[in-house]
């Protein structure tokens, strides 16, 4: 194997090395630990970009760990979709880390940087692996790191939400294992491509078990993606997490969506007999309700961070409406919107934080408060993030929603999808306008003893980075959608993936 072929595993190895090194040097020299964190994120971004360019030619690269041939060994698969997700994760990690360091959120407890790197390792691993059990392991890696990050800084509210978050996810992981056990018992393999070939040959008696496994697995992914009715864990968890962490968590729900896009066509695709597309009919209604619940939450939320958490749910719903079409152009639109909504969610959490930092005891509650530092600039940033989250022009959310609306027209029930997307956009716009006007337009008399905290403007960096990426995403919408559509084609072409992963076997 040449050095270049080892690049596929770099996004896993880099954070896996950076995390323990950061742990070791942190006690003596803080700045060195921080530097390692940034260097690792930059290296991950570089590796992801190289893979993104390499995957652009349409070949599916595989990396067999320990050179054990698939399906016996664990195999990593780099195709266009994986490369997009890796790049997305690495860019988001840079934004979140920048914000954590500037706002000193990383100093509120031990080991922030190690946990952050382990979180990245779990994310990258989940995006790369072609093995279902390995996917479970990387899910656990990212979850365990996320428990640490979510509780970072502690406090009663965070602990309370943390207990619920951990319990919900342990149950989810157990269900994941049951689905895996069923699938292994039925097919005798854990390699996704191989499983996709073998489900066709399952005995008729076992078809019902296969359907159970398919639905169980989809439920687990839906839990991670926070799709109604499995969304209840998200708002509280995200709203109480420290904002830099919440910004990184914006990609966590997308991991669930990614897993669905990866596994359902590959394993439960056209050839799967009675289990072919079993989860599909449930997804569109669930997605529509998710979008409505999410944006209704945006409408009624009383704090900016809570509003951002509901916006994440709503955007996942919109995203799933597109995914549930399971056609090349709906998936292509979904991939573009996935990238957009991740950055938009992160931008909302970051803006909520910089507002809260300037308003002292008023925090990010949507009530009029006394005048605060840089109010006009912050109002502009909030407007940008809100425009992105609701999908108004000129930012990329508008293009994303337009693509989704155009592509779903040949899916059954598209009228509902149109109604949901357009209706929720309106509700979202009203919701953001309401909180925005309360915070940025109205002014209340300062109560006695109120002292606005002096804050340096350095903390504007991360939100501006996120908004700049969103602007870039709308400026470069042409190439990105082309890439996304090509990625969707690759995902749906199960035979090509199987050939690439299993070779001549």
């Amino acid at each position, binding site marked *: 194997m040449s050095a270049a072929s080892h690049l596929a595993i770099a996004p896993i190895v880099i954070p896996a090395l950076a995390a323990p090194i950061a742990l070791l040097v942190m006690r003596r020299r803080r700045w060195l630990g921080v530097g390692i964190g940034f260097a690792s994120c930059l290296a991950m971004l570089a590796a992801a970009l190289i893979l993104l360019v390499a995957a652009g030619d349409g070949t599916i690269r595989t990396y067999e760990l320990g050179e054990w041939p698939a399906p016996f060994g664990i195999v990593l698969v780099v195709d266009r979709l994986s490369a997009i997700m890796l790049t997305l994760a690495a860019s988001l990690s840079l934004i979140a880390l920048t914000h954590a360091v500037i706002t000193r959120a990383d100093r509120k407890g031990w080991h922030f940087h190690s946990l952050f790197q382990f979180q990245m390792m779990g994310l990258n691993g989940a995006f790369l692996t072609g093995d279902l*059990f390995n996917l479970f*392991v990387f899910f*656990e890696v990212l979850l*365990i790191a996320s*428990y640490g990050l979510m*509780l970072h800084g*502690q*406090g*009663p509210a965070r*602990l*309370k939400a*943390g*207990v*619920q978050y*951990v*319990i919900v996810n*342990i*149950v989810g*992981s*157990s269900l994941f*294992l*049951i689905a*895996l*056990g*069923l699938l*292994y*018992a039925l097919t005798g393999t*854990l390699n996704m491509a191989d499983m996709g070939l073998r489900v066709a040959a399952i005995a008729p008696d076992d078809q019902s078990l296969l359907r159970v496994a398919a639905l169980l697995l989809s439920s687990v992914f839906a839990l991670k993606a926070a799709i109604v009715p499995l969304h209840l864990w998200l708002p509280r968890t995200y709203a109480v997490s420290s904002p830099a962490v919440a910004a990184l968590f914006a990609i966590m729900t997308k991991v669930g969506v990614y897993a669905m896009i990866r596994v359902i066509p590959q394993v439960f695709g056209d050839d799967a007999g009675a289990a072919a597309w079993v989860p599909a009919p449930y997804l569109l209604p669930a997605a529509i309700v998710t979008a409505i619940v999410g944006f209704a939450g945006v409408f009624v939320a009383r704090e900016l961070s809570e509003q951002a958490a509901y916006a994440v749910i709503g955007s996942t719903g919109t995203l799933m409406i597109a995914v549930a079409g399971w056609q090349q152009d709906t998936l292509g639109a979904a991939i573009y919107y996935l990238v957009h909504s991740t950055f938009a969610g992160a931008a909302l959490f970051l803006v909520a934080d910089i507002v809260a930092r300037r308003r002292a005891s008023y925090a990010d509650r949507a009530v009029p408060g006394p005048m605060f530092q840089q109010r006009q600039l912050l109002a502009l940033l909030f407007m940008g993030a809100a425009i992105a989250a609701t999908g108004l022009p000129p930012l990329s959310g508008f293009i994303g929603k337009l693509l989704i609306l155009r592509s779903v027209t040949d899916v059954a029930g598209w009228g509902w999808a149109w109604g949901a997307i357009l209706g929720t956009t309106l509700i979202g716009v009203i919701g953001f306008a309401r909180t925005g006007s309360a915070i940025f337009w109205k002014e209340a008399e300062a109560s006695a003893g109120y002292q606005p905290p002096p804050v340096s403007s350095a903390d504007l960096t991360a939100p501006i980075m996120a908004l700049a990426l969103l602007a870039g995403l709308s400026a470069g919408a042409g190439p990105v959608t082309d890439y996304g559509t090509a990625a969707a084609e690759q995902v749906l072409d199960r035979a090509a993936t199987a050939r690439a992963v299993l070779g001549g076997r």
Partner: protein
Amino acid sequence: MTLEFLVASAIGVLVAGGIYLSLRARTFQVVLGLTLFSYAVNLFLFASGRLTIDRPPILQKGVTDYADPLPQALVLTAIVITFGMTALAVVLSLRSFLETGSDQVDGNECAGDQDDCSDVTAEPHG
């Protein structure tokens, strides 16, 4: 009684108990429930390689029937992970109890007429 029936009913009972306890309001019961549930999952994973008796799990000369070794490796991974998660859940529940003064999962002190709420005030606090 066959081996299959025994294992299947054991898994079923564990899952039932685990789910019931996981839905309780207090963290101690929930942790116990999660433990039972993960036992059930581990047994289930183990059984997914079919139930065989007295078969070697590794290659040997002159042996044609094997026990599937892969589920055993999977179970090992699953045990390690669930054990770690249970430990985390215990520590977190304890910490949450000490910090918020409540061992209810939703953090609310004795809301309404829950029967297992009666002895909250009698709980020793350090």
